[in-house]
C-alpha cells in the first residue's frame, strides 16, 4: 500500500525522479492557469456574462470577503497569495473524483512546500506593513522572555500546517483504498463524498489559518493604537451620554 503519491514514479533518470506528486501538482496548476486565462479572456461589464465569469467573480468576492472578515483591511493585496493557496488545495481535493488522480496534497513534500510558502510570506507581509524593526520587536511582545517561545511557535505552526493537511488528505485516500478491498461498490462512494467534504474544509482551514497568521504579523502595531483609540472613544461616549440626557 502506498503511503503517499511520492512512491509512484513515472519516469526516472539518475537521481532525477518524476513522481506522481510533481505530475499531479503541475496538472492542477495547469488546470487552474488555463481555466483562469480562458475565463478572463472575454470579461464583460454588462449583465450578459458567461456562467464561468459568474463563478470566478463569486469565488474572488467570497475569498476577499473572508480575508476582510478575519481582519485584514486591504484584502486585494493578499488575495493573490491566499486565494491561490485556497484554490490549489480545493482543486486538488475536488479532482479526486477523477479515477487515477492522486491528490498531490496527500504527500508530505507538497504540503511542506505550501506551509513553507506561508512561513516565508508571513514575515514578508509583516515587514512590509510595520518595517523590519517593528516586526522583529513584535517577537518580544509581552516580555523579552517570550522570544524563544515565539520563535518555536512560528516553527511548530508551520509543521502543524503541513502535517494536518497531509494527514487529512492521506487518510481520506487510504480509507477509500482499504474499503475498496473489503466492501466494493456502495460504501466507498459514501466515504469518497465525505473525503470531498473534508478536502474542501481543509482547504478553507489552511486558507483561514494563513490569513490569521498574516493578520497577527501585520496588525500588532495597529491594535495597540486602535485599543487606545477605542478606549478614548468609549470614554468620550460615556462623557457625552449624561450630557445629552440633561
Amino acid at each position: 500500500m502506498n503511503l503517499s503519491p511520492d512512491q509512484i514514479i513515472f519516469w526516472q533518470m539518475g537521481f532525477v525522479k518524476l513522481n506522481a506528486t510533481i505530475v499531479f501538482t503541475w496538472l492542477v496548476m495547469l488546470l487552474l492557469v488555463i481555466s483562469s486565462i480562458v475565463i478572463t479572456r472575454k470579461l464583460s461589464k454588462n449583465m450578459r456574462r458567461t456562467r464561468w465569469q459568474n463563478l470566478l467573480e463569486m469565488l474572488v468576492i467570497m475569498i476577499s470577503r473572508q480575508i476582510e472578515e478575519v481582519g485584514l483591511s486591504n484584502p486585494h493585496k493578499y488575495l493573490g497569495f491566499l486565494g491561490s493557496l485556497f484554490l490549489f488545495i480545493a482543486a486538488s481535493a475536488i479532482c479526486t473524483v477523477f479515477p487515477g488522480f492522486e491528490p498531490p496534497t496527500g504527500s508530505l513534500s507538497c504540503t511542506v512546500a505550501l506551509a513553507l510558502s506561508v512561513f516565508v510570506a508571513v514575515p514578508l507581509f509583516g515587514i512590509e506593513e510595520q518595517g523590519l524593526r517593528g516586526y522583529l520587536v513584535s517577537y518580544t511582545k509581552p516580555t523579552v522572555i517570550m522570544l524563544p517561545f515565539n520563535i518555536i511557535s512560528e516553527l511548530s505552526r508551520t509543521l502543524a500546517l503541513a502535517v494536518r493537511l497531509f494527514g487529512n488528505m492521506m487518510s481520506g485516500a487510504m480509507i477509500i483504498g482499504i474499503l475498496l478491498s473489503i466492501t466494493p461498490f456502495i460504501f466507498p462512494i459514501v466515504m469518497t463524498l465525505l473525503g470531498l467534504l473534508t478536502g474542501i474544509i481543509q482547504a478553507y482551514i489552511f486558507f483561514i489559518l494563513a490569513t490569521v497568521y498574516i493578520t497577527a504579523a501585520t496588525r500588532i502595531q495597529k491594535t495597540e493604537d486602535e485599543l487606545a483609540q477605542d478606549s478614548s472613544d468609549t470614554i468620550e461616549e460615556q462623557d457625552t451620554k449624561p450630557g445629552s440626557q440633561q
Partner: protein
Amino acid sequence: MDSITIIAMVSIITAGLTITIGVIGPSLAEGKAVATALSALAQQPDASATITRTLLVGLAMIESTAIYCFVVSMILLFANPFWNYFIDLAAGI
C-alpha cells in the same frame, strides 16, 4: 521469538494503542467545543458567521492532534524504519 516478530508485534500493538488513546482526548475536546459553540449560537444568532469560522478553525486545531496520532500509527504500520532495516538486512543476506 526472533527480532523481526518482536518488531512486528510491538509496532502493531503500539499503532493500535496510539490511535485509541490519541483519539479520546480530541473527541472529548471537540464535543465540548461544539457544545459551547451551539450554546453561543443560541444566545447570539447574529454573530453566527464569526462563531462558525472560529469553531471551524478551533476544530481543525483540535483535530490535528488526532491526525498526528493517525500519521504515527500509519508510519508504524506501513513505513516502519526498524522493520525496513531488518528487511534490507534479510535481503542483503
